[in-house]
Each structure stands twice: as structure tokens, then as C-alpha cells.
């Protein structure tokens, strides 16, 4: 049976159960890397997060890639962390974010980092199929996550006496710059670029269960799959010149019928591995 929303939900619940307070400290190292285990190395070690093409950059070195960028996060989790016991917040957050990251990877994305309540990811657009395919895989990954949380996970959370969670997605497409920042004692690959910034902005505009995309991504989807967002466009002014950048609601439900089997067909490979000759 193909990987589906029930697998997602059951995996989250399993992580929550196993993440008992008493074993949290001893287990944290293992689960902290779980999202990377989909593309584990041949030796069995979990793969690090980030785009593998830029993992070996030296300090100060940089590279770039056109990609679909995704921010996928849990909404209203700040308020929840104010009211709920910290241990429960930690368990739910870790279990859900880990599985969201795994779902992104299963659907062809690279997880670039975990951002508190969410996942920052990209879908490499460098294959011969280019931007459209990357955009398509990004929307499918987001659609899978939204559907899995809303229609599978939340029922199990409620049955366990845990408040349901709400997720949203922000997307855009464009150039990403990867640069290693730091010192020999410690460094990381930072990801910069307007597309990343704007995808984050789109995520903030998205309400629960919504997917909002900047025009860089929306223009790579069929026109009928997007509608102009109420708050669009964003305006940018520089040296007296004013430019606008539009953003859109994505009709992600129409992608659900294309979700089954995508993860299995990819088999852990990134979206850029899909090619047609």
C-alpha cells in the first residue's frame, strides 16, 4: 500500500507515545535526525539537512539554484506554547514537525531547516522538466501535509486528548543562494534570496489549511489552479521606483487526487531526479 495520510498520522502518534518524558533526553538525539533518515547514506547514517549539492561549501563559498521554496508550519502554536504544559508542547511539536519534514522529503523536497514550528524546504528546479515540475511537487507535498494533518492526524490527536494542530503553507519559486557562514569552529549553510523571503511572507498570509504562493511559483502552475489573494500585491519601493509582486491562493485540493503513489514512485529521490527524455 502506498504511503498515505494514515501512515503520516500513525507515525506522528507513535512519535508522541514514544516521546515519553522519562525517555525524552535519551531519545532526543535519535529523533532529532529522524526527518533526514529518508535519504540516509549507504552506511545507514542519517543524511544532514540542506541541499546536498551545497553541503560541502567552504566558509564564505556560495552557490545558487532555482527552486520552489516552501515554508510549512503549524499555526497558533505560539499561543499553545503559552498555555499548554511545555512537555506536551515539545512532544507534539517534535512529532509533527519531524513527520512534516519526512513528508516533504518523501515528495521530492530537500529540508533546508526546521524553523521552530515548521519546515523550510526547497524543490530543486534544475531538472530538464524545470520550474513547472518543481512547483508541482511542492504543491503536492504541501497538499499531502495539509490533508494528512486535517483529515487523519487531528482525529487521532483528539482521541488521545490532545488539541488538534493547524498547518499552512507558503510557497514561491526563484533563485536561492546558498552560502556557508561561520568560523572553522562552527558554521552552517545559510539560504538567502527573495523567493525564500517571499515564501515566508506567503506563509504568514496563509490562514490554517491554506496554501499561498508568490507569483514566481504561481506562474508555473496552470492559471486555473490559483486565484489572486485578497491582500496581494506586495509593493516594493526603491530610489523612487515602485514595483509590485503578486501572490495567490493555490487550489491545493485539486492536487490530492495526484498524491497517492508519488512518494513511492520517487522512492526517496528528489524532484529534480524526475526526467523525461
Amino acid at each position, binding site marked *: 500500500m*502506498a504511503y498515505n495520510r494514515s501512515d503520516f498520522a500513525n507515525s506522528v502518534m507513535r512519535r508522541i507515545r514514544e516521546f515519553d518524558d522519562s525517555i525524552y533526553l535519551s531519545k532526543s538525539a535519535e529523533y532529532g535526525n529522524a526527518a533526514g533518515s529518508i535519504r540516509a547514506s549507504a552506511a545507514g547514517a542519517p543524511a544532514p539537512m540542506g541541499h546536498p549539492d551545497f553541503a560541502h561549501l567552504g566558509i564564505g563559498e556560495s552557490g545558487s539554484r532555482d527552486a520552489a521554496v516552501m515554508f510549512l508550519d503549524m499555526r497558533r502554536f505560539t499561543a499553545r506554547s503559552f498555555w499548554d504544559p511545555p512537555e506536551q508542547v515539545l512532544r507534539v511539536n517534535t512529532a509533527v514537525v519531524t513527520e512534516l519534514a519526512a513528508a516533504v522529503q518523501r515528495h521530492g523536497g530537500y529540508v533546508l531547516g526546521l524553523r521552530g514550528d515548521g519546515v523550510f524546504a526547497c524543490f530543486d528546479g534544475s531538472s530538464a*522538466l524545470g520550474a*513547472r*515540475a518543481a512547483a*508541482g511537487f511542492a504543491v503536492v507535498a504541501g497538499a499531502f501535509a495539509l490533508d494528512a494533518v486535517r483529515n487523519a492526524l487531528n482525529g487521532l490527536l483528539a482521541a488521545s486528548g490532545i488539541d488538534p494542530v493547524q498547518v499552512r503553507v507558503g510557497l514561491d519559486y526563484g533563485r536561492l543562494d546558498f552560502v556557508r557562514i561561520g568560523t572553522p569552529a562552527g558554521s552552517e549553510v545559510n539560504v538567502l534570496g527573495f523567493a525564500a523571503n517571499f515564501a515566508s511572507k506567503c506563509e504568514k498570509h496563509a490562514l490554517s489549511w491554506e496554501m499561498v504562493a508568490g507569483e514566481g511559483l504561481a506562474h508555473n*502552475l496552470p492559471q486555473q489552479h490559483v486565484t489572486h489573494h485578497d491582500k496581494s500585491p506586495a509593493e516594493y519601493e526603491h530610489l523612487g521606483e515602485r514595483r509590485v509582486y503578486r501572490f495567490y491562493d493555490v487550489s491545493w485540493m*485539486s492536487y490530492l487526487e495526484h498524491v*497517492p503513489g*508519488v512518494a513511492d514512485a520517487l522512492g526517496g529521490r528528489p524532484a529534480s531526479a524526475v*526526467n523525461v527524455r
Partner: protein
Amino acid sequence: MTLATLLSHVGIAVPRYVTVDGQIVLDAAPTTGFVSAPMPVAPHRFHDGEDPAPERSAYASAWWNIDTDARAADETAMATHFPNFVQYADDGDYAFGGELNTGRGRFKILVLPHVDKSLPTVIPLHKGLGRQAGRRLQRPPHLYTNGNLCIADSADWLPAEHTTATAVAWAAHWFAAYTEWRISSRWPTEGFGAAA
């Protein structure tokens, strides 16, 4: 199939190929060093209704018995693209039987070319094609009323160009769609690349 329908959904034209064991793939490159390259799937539309196949008789005047070049080309195409299929040639007949592996299931078929070189008949040897809907078995779309696979419209078949291997590739595409329909209850594609 899944990736093909997703890519089509975002507006990417995706050719389809069928491997020697009957799996629909997107890539023309061979997957291993010792098999031939996957065969491109010719444009076709799945169909339904009454089976338009003519009666299979008068083998003496059948194309495979009077047109040696056409028969040789047909046999070569089958040997190249579906080498695991067995040829039947009793009493002047000409047919092939074999198994297609969709990756989600294996299905045996019998392929019967027709004496007038019209669209071959594909008979599924798997009993009970369908999906369970409550207590009854839901029949899949795109079957003729007699239970044979409707792999294409008669107009899709180009007798001067197509071979029995073309029909087997269409049958592989049919079973790829069928296995997806079994999981999702949605027939994922109406065919490939043919004008509406």
C-alpha cells in the same frame, strides 16, 4: 503513471514508455544493461462499449500468412519489446500470450491480432477484474461488454504503422491505470497523447 499524471496536471507533456515486463515509465533509457530500451507508448484513448473485433477465422488469408514482411516486423517488435511473451501459431493462427508487471501487480493477457489487421483484441486472463465496493465487485471502466480490455479507439490503430507490440504497450498502460483505480477509485487518465 502517478508521476506522469501529476506532471500532466501542471501542464507538462509527458511521453510514456513501457518496459519489457510491462511497466509504464517516463524514461526511454533502459533500466539495466541487458534489456532493450523501453518502448514509446503510441497515442491512444481508452474506450468502452461493444467490442468491435471481427470474427477470428479464415486464417489462410490473414495478413500474417500472406504478408511475410509484415509478420517478420511484428514478430521482431514483440521479440524486442516483450521478449517474455510466447507466440502461438497453431493451425495458421497468430497470437501472443504473456504477463505484464505494472509494479503493483502482475496480469496475464492473450493478444489476438485480427485477420484484417484491425486493432488486436486483448483478453485479460485474470478473473474478476474490479474493486470491492461493499459486497459487490465494481467493474473497472474501459472494458468492453464482453470483458476484453478496451485499450484504444479503433481510430487510434494505424495498421500500416502499429504492431502487436503497440497493443501490448497499450494494455500495459491500461493495467497501470487499472491498478491506480483500484487504490484511488479514480481512473487516472483517458489515454495518452491522442486528439480528443
